Every structure is written in structure tokens, then in C-alpha cells.
């Protein structure tokens, strides 16, 4: 089956488009999170997504809209992590650990209480971008537009808060507002990323493109563009190779992301060695 033939399937077109949008959103937010030392928030939110999906299925939401319906609960979890962290009494990693374990534990208990769902809850663990429906594609597009607009409009504030929160406060930046915005958008990105890579691999979409871009040692704006470039490249390659070789798309996308990170790392080492 050649590439032209693969691209003619509408579910492949939807997967590619949604994948590109979600990867770009995850990479943009991921850069801020990695630099703020919140790399593991993706893992934490993915685990709470598991619990949220269980709640959503338990109340009888149609499986078609499970992803979208889980968003509010994951947003609340994200804000809980922010609240715990900003109290200065609990470190970020510990706050993520608390919310994350609550999400998983609640999910398992709810699954057990319900005596099983119509859809396999555990299928969300590994995701499947090739099953993206029209509603999810539209939500991905909407979220992409919102995140892009927020990053452009609040670029200076996001840059300042990421560089140094106290310095940003002294410049009059509303750091609380910026942080809440970042955490809420990250929650939405985590739910969407679950569709691409599955709960187990959400954090990879947030972290890996940013890490690869940071290896380039270029300005902040260029790093953002590079992170999006790596993320989109990994999604396109991952989906096409997965379809052609009949392999799981989420895992292939993550493997391509790791491949890009490794390639950039090696090229950087070689260029240092040549000097």
C-alpha cells in the first residue's frame, strides 16, 4: 500500500490532522512546563484522566464523547496540583504524586464498582489516534487555536514567569493568572494527548519535543518553533509508519520523538567534538 493510497482514507486524514494539532499544542505547553520543572505533570494528569474517564463512563456518557467529557475533571485535578504547589508546603513532584495516585485509585475502584463498562477502560491506557472522531477533531482544532492565541497574546508574561516568577511579579505580571491558564490548558492538552499516545505515554508528548528543541541551544522563540517542528514530525512519521507496518500509532509517535531527541543530542555532541 503506497503513501497516496494511505492518505485517501478519511480516518487516516482525521488522525493526521488531529495528531498534528495535539502534538503542536503539547509541544508549546511542554516547553513552559519542562522549564518550570513541571515535566511530570503530564503523567499526573494522564493518571487523573484515567479516573475521570471512569467517572464519565459510570454516569453513562456515550463512548463517542468520553474524551471531551473528561476535560472538566482533569482541569480540576490540574488546578489542585497548582494549588498544592503554590502553598509552598508541598513540592511540585509530591503534589503531582498525590493527584496522580488519587486519579488511578479512583479509576480502578469505580471500574470495579460498576462491574465493567461497555468500552474497555483499559484501552485508554495505550490510546489510538486512528479512532479519532469528528467531535474530537473539532475540539483539537479549537484547543489549538486557543493555545496559539494565548501563547502569542501572553508571550511576554509567559516568558517572564518561566524565566523567574519573582522577577515577573516585580514587573507587574499577574503570575497567578498566567499559572492558572497554563495549568488549565495543560489539562486539556493531556486529555487530548491521551487519544494520541494513551495514558501511559501522555507525558512523552509534552516533554520529548521540548527536550529535543532545548538541545539546539537557540533563542526562546526558535526553541518554541523547533519543539513544534519535532512534535509534528514525530506524529506524521509515527502515524504513517504505524499504518504501513501495522504497529500501534501512539508508541510509534513516542519512539520517533525519542529518535529525534537522540539524533539532536548526537549531532550536538559531534559538532562540539569537531570544534
Amino acid at each position, binding site marked *: 500500500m503506497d503513501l497516496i493510497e494511505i492518505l485517501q482514507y478519511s480516518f487516516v486524514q482525521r488522525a493526521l490532522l488531529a495528531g498534528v494539532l495535539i502534538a503542536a499544542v503539547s509541544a508549546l505547553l511542554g516547553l513552559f512546563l519542562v*522549564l518550570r520543572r513541571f515535566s511530570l505533570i503530564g503523567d499526573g494528569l494522564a493518571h487523573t484522566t484515567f479516573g475521570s474517564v471512569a467517572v464519565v463512563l459510570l454516569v453513562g456518557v456515550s463512548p463517542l464523547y468520553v474524551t471531551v467529557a473528561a476535560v472538566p475533571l482533569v482541569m480540576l485535578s490540574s488546578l489542585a496540583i497548582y494549588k498544592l504547589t503554590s502553598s509552598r508546603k508541598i513540592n511540585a513532584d509530591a503534589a503531582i504524586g498525590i493527584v496522580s495516585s488519587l486519579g488511578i485509585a479512583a479509576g480502578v475502584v469505580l471500574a470495579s464498582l460498576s462491574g465493567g463498562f461497555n468500552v474497555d477502560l483499559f484501552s485508554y491506557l495505550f490510546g489510538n489516534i486512528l479512532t479519532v472522531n469528528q467531535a474530537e477533531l473539532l475540539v483539537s482544532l479549537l484547543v489549538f487555536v486557543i493555545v496559539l492565541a494565548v501563547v502569542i497574546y501572553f508571550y*511576554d508574561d509567559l*516568558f517572564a514567569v518561566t*524565566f523567574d516568577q519573582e*522577577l515577573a511579579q516585580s514587573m*507587574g505580571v499577574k503570575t497567578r493568572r498566567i499559572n492558572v491558564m497554563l495549568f488549565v490548558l495543560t489539562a486539556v492538552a493531556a486529555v487530548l494527548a491521551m487519544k494520541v499516545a494513551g495514558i501511559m505515554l501522555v507525558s512523552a508528548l509534552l516533554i520529548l519535543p521540548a527536550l529535543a528543541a532545548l538541545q539546539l*541551544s537557540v533563542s526562546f*522563540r*526558535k526553541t518554541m518553533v523547533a519543539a513544534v517542528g519535532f512534535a509534528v514530525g514525530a506524529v506524521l512519521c509515527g502515524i504513517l509508519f504505524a499504518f504501513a507496518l501495522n504497529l500501534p500509532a501512539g508508541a510509534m509517535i513516542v519512539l520517533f520523538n525519542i529518535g529525534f531527541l537522540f539524533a539532536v543530542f548526537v549531532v550536538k555532541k559531534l559538532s562540539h567534538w569537531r570544534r
Partner: protein
Amino acid sequence: MSVIRVEDLTFCYNGIDVISDVTFAVDEGAYLGLVGPNGSGKSTLIKNILGILPAARGRIELFGEPLGVFRRWDKIGYLPQRLSALNAHFPGTVEEIVQMGLRRRDARDLQNTLDKMAIGHLAKRLIGELSYGEQQRAMLARALIRRPELLIFDEPTTALDPETRDVFYALTRSLNQEEGTTIVLITHDSGVIGQYAQYLLYLDKKIIFSGTFRDFCASRDMAGVFGPESQHIICHQHDGTGSRL
């Protein structure tokens, strides 16, 4: 007009008073040296004034407005003692950092400010790749490029070599005397601060002394608090007043 007015300010951490009942004012065009031992609450006081740490009690006004409603942050330039969590991998170039938050960005202005701090050649370098001293100069440039009416420096010279330190102090004097910029400078360098600052605030959880250097050097009470030797060290470079001690 008072640029900073603080009344009965108290800040607590875990139920313990870090600073208590602090009252003072800094007038427009003043150069204030804020000194005190380690842990005396100097940086905390500045963070309270800038709204970074919320005070437990008291009232703070900036440029005549209560802190809660103050919005003209472009009037204030702040150089923190140490960036709270500078990530060595932060991908910001020196020019991005220096121009951070500026509404109007002028390339010539940027270059002049960087040259003044002797880092003109580092404009395109990442901040994390620089030495601590170079980072400090970049942060100084960031504070200065905004041409603020009030400059607050927290231990600004700790990582600077003696030459750059002298350039920095001369710069603060020229900003204060020629451009009328109000300056608040926290320092351990009490022997040097007397050369530049007209006012001294000595803090040790509460205010031990607040007034002009001349008053400080002439005060027998302060000689009793610090001992004549320490008072002499603080005063000996200030307009000869302390040399009689």
C-alpha cells in the same frame, strides 16, 4: 513625594516574625542604603514592598498609591539577589532577557545599555551559558533599560569583579544625581555604601536606624549599638563625617 512609604509592616513565616513593625519612607530622588546582618529581613522587606511576599500586617504605598492598586510597575526596576530558580538550560538570549516585558524595543538602546555593562558582545548568547558575573550584568542591564524612576538592587555587586563593581556604583550615582532616579540598595558592603548613599536604613528584623548618613555617623546611640569601630567602618568614606570618630 514619597516613592516608597511603609507603615507598621510585619511579615511572618511559619508563625515567626521575620520583620516586625517596620515604618519608613523613601523620598523621590533619594539614595538609600539598606544594610543589616544575614537573615535580618532586608530581602524580605523588599519582596513585601514589591508584592512578591504578602505582608501579615501594615501598609505599603508606592508612588502615593496603596500596593494593592498600584499598576505602574514600569516605574520600578528590580534586581533580585539571586534569580530564584534560573534553569541552566533556559533558552533565553541576553537580548531576550534584557528586553523582557518592554513595550517599545529599540535596538540602539539595547546595544547602548549592554555596552554600558560591558556585555555588548554577549547579546546573542544564552543566559545560562554565561558566568554568574555576566548573568548579573545582564540582569543589571535589564533593570536599567526600562529607565525606571525607582531602582531597587538586592546585593547587586556580590558576583562582580572590583572594576565592574566600581563602574556599577558610579553608574548608580550618576543615575541618582543626574537623572534623579531614586535608588534603594541592599548591601553588605557597608564600607562602600557610605560613599554613595545619602540615607541609611539599618534593619535587624526591626529598624535599628533610619536617617541620613551624617546623623548615623554623629549618633552616640549608634556607636553604642555597633561599637565605635563598626560605626567608623560604615562612616569613614562618607563625606568626612565619620572620620572624626
